[in-house]
């Protein structure tokens, strides 16, 4: 089925997102990678909605977009707060919460 290719694309994008989150140290890039993961999920949801012929998956995709927008707001707010305090923009250097 041709729908399988959509899922393959979704999986590839998800893995690129994961790799980005794990490898990169700039919080802005990590945020972008998170968006990639979310959109990969969206793609999978829409695909499955097409596969089963229902609307639920598409509605879920819309909701995920809303959540993603909120998440970006929070994340960007954090990054702005970090740069305002002249802290290093590097997640590896922000490790005060260790045990």
């Amino acid at each position, binding site marked *: 089925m041709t729908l399988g290719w959509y899922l393959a694309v979704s999986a590839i994008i998800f893995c690129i997102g*994961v790799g980005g989150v*794990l*490898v990169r140290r700039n919080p802005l890039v990590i945020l972008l990678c998170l968006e990639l993961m979310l959109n990969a999920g969206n793609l999978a949801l829409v695909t499955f909605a097409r596969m089963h012929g229902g609307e639920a998956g598409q509605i879920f995709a819309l909701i995920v977009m809303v959540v993603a927008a909120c998440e970006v707001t929070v994340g960007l707010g954090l990054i702005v707060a970090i740069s305002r305090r002249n802290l290093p923009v590097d997640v590896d250097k*922000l490790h*005060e*919460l*260790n*045990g």
Partner: protein
Amino acid sequence: MSPTTWGWLVLLFPLIGTVTIGVGFKRWGRAAGVIGTVAIALSFVAAVGALLSLLGRPEGGREVTSSLWNYASSAGVDAKLQILVDPISIFMILVVTGVSTLIHLYSTAYMRSDRGYARYFAYLNFFVLSMLILVLGGNFIMLTVGWAFVGAASYLLISFWYRRNTATSAGIKAFVINVLGDVGIVLGTFFIFRHTHTVSYLGSFKAAPHVFHTDSPDLVAGCLLFLVGAFAKSAQLPLHTWLADAMEGPTPVSSLIHAATMVTAGVYLIVRLHPFFQLAPTAAEVGAIVGCATLLVAGTIALVVTDLKRVIAYSTMSQIGYMIMGASGGAYSAALFHLMTHAFFKALLFMAAGSIIGAMAGDQSLDRMHGFRKAMPFTFACFLIGGLALSGIPPFAGWFSKDDIIAYLNNRGGIWEVFGILGYVGALLTGLYTFRMIFRAFFGDPSPEAVELEHGHIAHAEVPRNPMTGEEEDTDVGFPGPEHVIAEREWAMKVAMGALAALAVVGGFLQIPGVDHVIENFLSPALAGAPLAAASHEPSTSTAWIGLIIGAVIGLVGITLAYSVYVARPGTSARLQRRLPAVHNFLIHKWYFDELIDFVVVRPALTIGRFSQDVLDRIVVTGGVTGGVTAAVRSGGAAVRRAQTGFLRYYAGALIFGLTIVVLYFLISST
């Protein structure tokens, strides 16, 4: 109104009195005494109302119960706030409220200068309320509640002068021993409840003959546990040691609680539970043996004790020994009759003793009291009437009631006749120690205090001292007040003592063999089911009169002995003391009961306690349990702490790793 409505009213007035005085104790001042006295007087009126209303009913319907609400009625438990109004409870509430009213009246004068005046009346009203709950309660739950309340009230009043060390430790001793009795009552109730499946008196009495046979082990065990409660409350061997110490309380308290009412609760209990005791003759015999032993032991101790109030306290134990013996043997109406007359003359004796102690400026030692006869004629008359009634001299009240018990026991025969004869020995001791008190305190050369009083002035000590230890005391709150009062100068004390003296003279006429049987006839509906209370067991009129005459002669012999020892040939007692030092030592140490209890109970308990503290608590609990748990938690925390590195990418990696594992698991398990 129905008898039960009156019964609830009897309980209501002391409750109102307690709450009113207790809540507004700062505001009332002198009025507290009036409120307290009026509350109890109204309660007495309600008790009379209950009596009249009960007498208006046919004989078969004189057992009335009423319950206000259920505490719990599930799984076969029928715990209700219930009262039972029957001749026995009416008899008891009349005695309790009547004597209490007079003692409240006496207290308004006696406690006048005490800084804890309002507190005193709040406690005293609370005591009367508790005692009335005890005797009016219609089931074992109410009995237990009343039983425990009475113990608490007794503790509060014994320790009333709470800055006296001797008083507080006496209060603790009384409370601990009384709680032992409470435990007996509760456990005994369980034994009965297991078989009868009801906690109400009437229900369990009805069920008892069907579920128990004579001397069933469970019934005997239950009755013995009830007896433990009765012995603790009524100061019978070996739980009697608290009563002598309880004399640390104010004298009116000794009069009300430790002579007239509370200590007779054990007798009430045996009479109330007579259907059980009739089915368990073994338990009844144990009760009689203990009663008889207490009668003799306490009587001998009373011969040597030199503290006026303690002599009367030992006399109380001894007289309650008669009642317990009689009630166990089946002489229910005689035991209650003696309970009533004893309440009259013993309360009177204590009141008169309080008057002398007032004249002695708080000193209670018989060694220092002499010749108060001229200085205190009214007190002397009252003490003499009380003493004659106690010794069983005709025609005073004690003569009829005590010999009623002994005649019943002699008539029953067998082992009971032995108890009857020992009862006569007790009567001899009674006459002896009673008149030892009278001859020492009222006869002979007047002591300095008596001389001072003859000149119209009450002696006051330079500094107030604790009569037991001689320690110097304050007259502030928590100590006796600065003023000393004597009956000759206080109308309230005079009225109370005069009324009791009159009752001690005529109280016995209620039941004269062959003439009238007021008490027996009144109680008979409640005792109708008891074979031992049947007419066949009652002594005939002629045997009863022979018993009365023997009793009177023995009482007179006791008095004559006391006269020859203390008046005709003074110094005889000192000679006897020198001649028989071992006997005197034995008696003055109260048969070494305190030491025995110390050795058998207190020391082992202390040893076990020390062991628990040193070994169980310190090593096992603190070291093992507490220490082990904290060490485990701490080391676990230290191990897990390393996982928290603070690196965001590390967390994300762990998250994704875990997610991958979960997804793989589901993928593999689904195929």
